[in-house]
């Protein structure tokens, strides 16, 4: 089975997964902007991890700038920090 024959299947699954966007809370920019950064950065950096890392950093930054730092939980903070350190040092 050649690659261009499995590509349609992959593209179809991709469309189904993209439907997750519909469930985002589109009335809160501090929620949907980081999510969209993840969505855009994953294909554009060709890395799932980079997409997640940049989105988490944006989430922490936006929540903090919006004065809602209390909504940031430890897991998100830890991942954002770890990824920031990786970007700077690795």
């Amino acid at each position, binding site marked *: *089975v*050649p*690659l*261009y*024959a*499995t*590509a*349609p*299947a*992959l*593209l*179809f*699954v*991709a*469309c*189904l*997964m*993209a*439907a*997750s*966007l519909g*469930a*985002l*809370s589109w009335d*809160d920019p501090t*929620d*949907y902007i*980081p*999510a*969209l*950064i*993840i*969505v*855009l*950065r*994953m*294909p554009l950096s*060709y*890395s*799932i*991890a*980079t*997409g*997640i*890392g940049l*989105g*988490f950093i944006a*989430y922490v930054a936006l929540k903090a700038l919006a004065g809602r730092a209390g*909504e940031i*939980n*430890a*897991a*998100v903070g*830890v*991942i954002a920090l*770890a*990824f920031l350190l*990786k970007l700077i*040092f*690795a």
Partner: protein
Amino acid sequence: MGLYANYPIALAPGMGLNAYFAFTMVPELGGNWQLALGCVFVSGVLFFLLSLSPLLPWLIDAIPMSLKLGIAAGIGFFLALIALENAGIVAADPITLVTLGDPSKPQAWLAAAGFLLIAGLAVRKMPGAIIVGVIAVTLTAVALGLEPWHGRAAAPPSLAPTFLQMDIAGVFQLGLVTMVLTLLLVTILDTAGTLIGVARQAGLLDQEGRLPRARQAFLADSGSAAFGAGLSPRPSPPISRARRAWRREAAPALLPSWSRCSFCLHCCSRRWPRPCRSTPRRRRCCSWPV
């Protein structure tokens, strides 16, 4: 993953990390791929140890819903890029970075037609739409003489050149801490992200968006990360139906065939939380339009 965590999720080599291994780690180590394999192994063992703790499941459950949705959709877009690239519909361009592929190539047209066929059949709720599309494109390609007929199965490439070739002692001598930690972080994010993405798509997340048995899933994955270093160069993030994307990897044949076997095992085991698409008598309960 299937036997231990009881999830219909297969493991396969991750492509991004494969690129990191081949184009960043190995050149940085002066071409010493045995040492690079050692780094992969050590980070795999660390990942395994982390999976034994409750830390990673806590991590997955604590990620806010909006970011989980972003991860699931993002993996979708990533898969779309890979698929369009495989189909020759997206091509590299020195000026605009990406551009439309060569429209004179029949492969791109075949892939596009196959996609529309799958989408159309899925809308009509035809069972097996995806498989029908893939087979239709393959048969058309063979009929048009684009593909030679290989027969139905191919032998996996030999593992011997890379089997147990890793240099573990060297990792500690040279103090490759950043490289190991980078691998670890990327592996954790890749794994958590992919698990969230495919679990959401397959409806395995519970009401609050948590993944039950996340610990087992992580253990299965991290175990293969350490074990995989003994076989070949990189950790293996979990994948679901997206597994075909990883086909063009260096050693592709073995893992997809394993995935297929374990998927079959799942279908037989009946413990699976969701009915399998290839079990006809239970197909009507399957919410997935395949």
